[in-house]
C-alpha cells in the first residue's frame, strides 16, 4: 500500500523543490566550507606540494579536485529531516502525518530524495568544470565509478537515519537540534570535510575508520579522486552497509518509542 504511494510522493516533492528553487539555490550556495578549505590548502600547496601520511603527494590541482568532489558529494547526500521532525513535533502538526496510512519516515525520505534532481542540476556546473579541467586528478578505474552511486546513496541513508534519530529525540528532549550541532562538529573533523583523511596521523585515521563520519563523505570523495584501491573501497562499503543497518534499527526503535509519547500539543 505505502509503496504504491511513493511515485506520487516523489512527484509532489519535486514540485515543492521546484517551487522553492531560490531557497534551494541559497542552501547550495551556503555550502562554502569546501571552497574555503580549498583556498587554504591551495595557497599552501602552491609553495610546495604537501606530502600525505600515506606517501601521496598533494599538489594544488589535487586539492582543487578533492574539495570540488567534497562540494558535489555534500550536496547530494544532504538530509534535513531532523529540523522538519523537530518543527512538526513542536507545532503539533505531526498529528496530521500520523493520521495518514503511510509511515511518516517514508514521507520525509521521499520529500528529501525528491530534491535530488534539482540539487544535482545546481551542482552540474561544478562537475563539468571539474571534469573539464582536472580530469587527470579523478579516478581512472571504471569500477570505482560503478560503485560510486551506491556509496553516495549509502552516505545519504546514514545522514537521513541520523536525522531521524535526532528528530525522534525531540519527543523527549527540548533541544535535540543541539545534538545535530554536535554531530556536525564531529562530521567536520572526521569526515574529511576540512582536512583530507590522508593527512591524519595513523592513530587518528584508525579512529575515523570506526566512526560513521568517514562513510558519509570521504568514501565517495576518495572513490572519485582515485585515492582508494578497489579492494579497500569494497571493505569500506561493507562498513558503510553495517552503519546503515545499525542506524536503521536505532532509528526505528527511537521513532516508535517517541511517537508513543507524542501528544500533539502546541498550535
Amino acid at each position, binding site marked *: 500500500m505505502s509503496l504504491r504511494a511513493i511515485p506520487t510522493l516523489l512527484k509532489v516533492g519535486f514540485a515543492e523543490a521546484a517551487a*522553492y528553487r*531560490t*531557497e534551494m539555490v*541559497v*542552501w547550495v*550556495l*551556503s*555550502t*562554502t*566550507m569546501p*571552497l*574555503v*578549505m580549498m*583556498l*587554504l590548502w591551495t*595557497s*599552501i*600547496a602552491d*609553495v*610546495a606540494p*604537501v*606530502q*600525505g*601520511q600515506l606517501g601521496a603527494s598533494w599538489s594544488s590541482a589535487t586539492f582543487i579536485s578533492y574539495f570540488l568532489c567534497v562540494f558535489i558529494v555534500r550536496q547530494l547526500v544532504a538530509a534535513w529531516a531532523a529540523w522538519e521532525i523537530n518543527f512538526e513535533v513542536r507545532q503539533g502538526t505531526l498529528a496530521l502525518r500520523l493520521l495518514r496510512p503511510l509511515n511518516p519516515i517514508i514521507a520525509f525520505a521521499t520529500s528529501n530524495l525528491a530534491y535530488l534532481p534539482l540539487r544535482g542540476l545546481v551542482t552540474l556546473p561544478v562537475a563539468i568544470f571539474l571534469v573539464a579541467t582536472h580530469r587527470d586528478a579523478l579516478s581512472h578505474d571504471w569500477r570505482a565509478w560503478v560503485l560510486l552511486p551506491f556509496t553516495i546513496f549509502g552516505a545519504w541513508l546514514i545522514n537521513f537515519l541520523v536525522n531521524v534519530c535526532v528528530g525522534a529525540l525531540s519527543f523527549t528532549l527540548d*533541544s535535540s537540534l*543541539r545534538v545535530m*550541532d*554536535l554531530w556536525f*562538529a*564531529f562530521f*567536520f*573533523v572526521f569526515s574529511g570535510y*576540512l*582536512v583530507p583523511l590522508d*593527512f*591524519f*596521523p595513523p592513530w587518528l585515521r584508525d579512529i575515523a575508520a570506526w566512526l560513521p563520519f568517514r562513510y558519509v563523505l570521504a568514501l565517495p570523495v576518495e572513490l572519485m579522486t582515485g585515492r582508494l584501491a578497489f579492494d579497500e573501497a569494497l571493505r569500506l562499503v561493507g562498513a558503510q552497509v553495517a552503519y546503515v543497518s545499525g542506524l536503521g534499527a536505532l532509528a526505528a526503535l527511537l521513532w516508535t518509542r517517541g511517537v508513543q509519547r507524542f501528544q500533539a500539543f502546541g498550535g
Partner: protein
Amino acid sequence: MRRAFELLKVQLKASVMLAVQYRLDFVLDLVIGLFWTIAAVLPLFVVYGGSSSAQGVPGWTFGETLLVVGCFITLQAVIDGAISPSLSSVLDHVRKGTLDFVLLKPHDAQLLVSTARFQLWRAAGLVHAGIVFTLGFRELGHGPSVLGVAEALLLLLVATALLYSLWLLIVSVSFYAVKVDNLSSLFTSIFDAARWPASVFRGAFRIVFTFVIPLVVMTTLPAEALLGRLPWTSLVASIVGAAVFAVVARSVWLLSLRRYTSAGG
C-alpha cells in the same frame, strides 16, 4: 538620542530575562562551542604540524594564524549573539507581513528591528576566542602591546559595524525576494571564509574579500594590529570604509522599506 538608549535598555532587558530563563543554554553553548573551536583550529595543527611536510600559510606562522582564528571566533560570537537573532526575526516579519506592528511604533524602525533579540549566552564564544588567543601568544612567545590591543579592539568594532551593515543589506534584499528565508545562513557561511589570514586569498578573491565583502578588514587587520605590524593607513582606511558602508546600508534600507507592502499570509 536619549530615547534610543532608553529603547536599547528595554530591549536588552527583555533579552536578559529570556536568557536567564534558559541558563542551561550557557553550558550547552560552552560545550558545543568547544567542539566547533577544535574543528576550527584542527586544520591549522595539520597544516603547521611537524608530521606533515606543509610549509603553512605563506607569510604567517602558526601563532600568527591562531590570532586570526581568535578574531574570527570573537566575531562569530558577536554575529550569533547580537546580529543573527534579530536578522532572523525581521526576515520572519517581512515574510508574514507582521512588520506592520514594528513600523507603527513611534520610533526608528531600523533601531527597533536590530535590537529585537539578543542571544546573550552566545557570549560563551568569547571564552573560546580567549583560549585560542592564549594559545597563539604562547606560540609566539610574547604578549601584545597596549597600543596593539587598543587598535585591535577598535578594528573589531569596525568589523562589527561592517557585519551589521552587511546584515542590513541582506534584510533589504528580503523586501524584494521574500521567499528566501535562509539568507541568514548564507550570511554566516560567507563569513566562514574570514577564518584564514588574507594571504590565502589571491586574484579576484583578494579584491572581493577586501572591498566588496571586507572579510580581510574584519579578521586579518585586527590580528596584524595585535602583532604590532598594522600600518596607520590601513586603520584609517578601514574606519572610513566602514562609515561609507554604513551610510550606504542605511540608505538602501530606507529605500527598500518603501517596497514593503505588508500583504502576508
